[in-house]
């Protein structure tokens, strides 16, 4: 489910030293396009679907979409990362919603920002 960027939501990470999706992608795939200043995955076929870019995007501009050869549209899986957990929302193709809260860090104390 390679990442697709919603143009109205991506601001090219203005204010960050480097666009976050570009910073983190292990495959060096996310880049900012010249004329628009917005992010794009340069080759969706090279993406491993690790969802790191999607989790890091501060504006939730990245929608991970499953390859159509493998599954139907328009289901969605949306992660929202909090300080100690990720909240995942799965919306299937019929609009049924399921929510999951997954722990990320042990302990309750304030952890340094990972």
């Amino acid at each position, binding site marked *: 489910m390679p990442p697709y960027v919603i143009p109205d939501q991506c601001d090219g990470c203005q204010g960050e030293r480097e666009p976050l999706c570009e910073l983190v*992608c292990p495959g*060096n795939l996310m880049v900012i396009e010249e004329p628009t200043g917005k992010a794009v995955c340069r080759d969706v076929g090279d993406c*491993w679907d690790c969802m790191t870019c999607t989790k890091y995007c501060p504006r939730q501009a990245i929608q991970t979409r499953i390859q159509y050869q493998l*599954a139907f549209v328009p289901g969605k899986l949306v992660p929202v990362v909090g300080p100690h957990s990720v909240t995942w929302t799965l919306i299937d193709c019929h609009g049924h919603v399921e929510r999951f809260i997954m722990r990320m*860090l042990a302990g309750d104390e304030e952890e340094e920002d990972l």
Partner: protein
Amino acid sequence: MARERVYIDADVLIIGGGTAGCLAAWEARQSGGENLKIVILEKAFIRNSGALSAGMNALNMYVNQGKPEDLVAYIRYDVCGAPVREDILLGVAGLVNETVAMMEKEGLPIKKKADGSYLNRGKWNIEINGSLLKPITANMAMKARAKVYNRVYVTDLITVDGMVAGCVGFGVRDGKYYVARGKTVLVCAGGAAGLWRPRGQGDAHHRIWYYPFNTGGSYAMCKRAGAKMVGFDSRFVPVRTKDTYAATGTMSIGMWAPMINAEGEAFMREREEYVKLGGHTAPTPIRVLAYCREMQNNRGPCYMDTTKGDPQRVDGLKAQYLDISPILVLYWGCNDINPSREPVEIDAGNPSIIGAHAAFAGAWTLGTSRMTTVERLFVSGDALGAAPSRFISGSWSCGRLAGRGMAGHIKEKRPELLELDPAVLSDLERNIFAPLERYEKCSFFTSGDPVEGVFPNQMEWRMQHIMEEYCGGRSRWFYVNETNLGIARKLINRMRREQLQYLVAKDMHQLQLAWDVINRLDVCQLVIDHIDHRKETRYPGYVNRSDYPEADDANFDCFVTSLWDAKKDELTFGKEPYEQIIPGDRKAQTI
């Protein structure tokens, strides 16, 4: 125009900031002291790189019961009693529980039972919430004050008088030429994905089990540096969730869900031919073999029958997969699949070459030092051969032992940094950037394709096509014989020897892809020749030799090793004896 150069000197030079590399940095600091200069060169961004980048939901090496010896006996059993480096595995198993406790303190959430002990998955695994596994792992390198260079792709080791002196590479983003020297050098750049054709096409080309950005650099670099290599006669065949190739341990070990065929038969438990090979808990290659046989006999599709699993755990299945393979959860959502109410279809994916999971590839190491046959050159994680099933927790521990080994080597032997020959550095530089230079000189078709060149992805597809057809890919059910191995060798060597001169890259990203192909082709050479050399079938399921279908203990109950002759571009083979440390039947578990 002269390219900008970056020179780096280190005491401990680590190539690949992954599972093993980060903990090697940590341990080198603990045992090497405050002044040790530790450098990590990482192809991607260290906080999110490597096999852990999507997260994981279990640590597959942990001594939940019994002793480290029992765990090692289990590992031996799980690879059909094949020779394993018991000395190395015992050291890792002895350190693994302590390492896990340390990582829990560093923030890793480990699931607990009511009594506060770790929640086990089967005998040797524990369950975690590992979505931040890589950032937590990378933090250990930061805490050790390792100097990390992100987005530096290492292409080659440099040796001087038979000793490793350092390495060279290029900045994927800055385009600079990196030259690094180390008193000790650790290669831990993972295994090799993508040698065989993937099942998904086009935009699903990387929808494979193994992390596709580890492309065999570990093995190719060690081989080219003259290190003795081992274990390329095995390969890991992942039987995983169909289409998405997500791990299945969550279902098979985690909830005791059996594999079933189209007739609903739990074949591992019900068919005599598999029961006598171990049934539901048969060695990993045997379970692969059984799945393939069911399919070949047209009893597919096959499934993991979650409906027969532990109901409490089956209910939490989607949540568990969010920590390791969120794609599978979306796939279920988009295909109206409810895994708690219906069996989950499985398939065999393309093989990967690895050393820390259930396969054997890597460099041969001397005793438990982690040093290869090239002085000062160390390996860990997937780069270390003949010691399978270390997984995450074992790769952490293995990395720690490598860190100790390097710090110890520096203390005892007091190695000095070696002088590098400027002519050698210039040759390497030319070689590294050659695909870019060639592209500049090309003329182009109207499509934009170069007349005189071949792009990295085109070479990748050719390589995968050859390996798939002639080196026992999924479409051949992992069968090979001497004839098709000969064809594979001829075609792959032609690519390596004659065709690389056409490899072009139009930008730095493509240069990275170009080196991925170069390294993979070198690993193909190791794989083809090692498989051909082992004239027997020791790992049925992984490598089935139709011409030598049985194990041949008289000749091959040992480690088969190779050394690369650079002048002839040939491998010379040797053998290392297997030393059994843990007594008893190798094909049986001790507890």
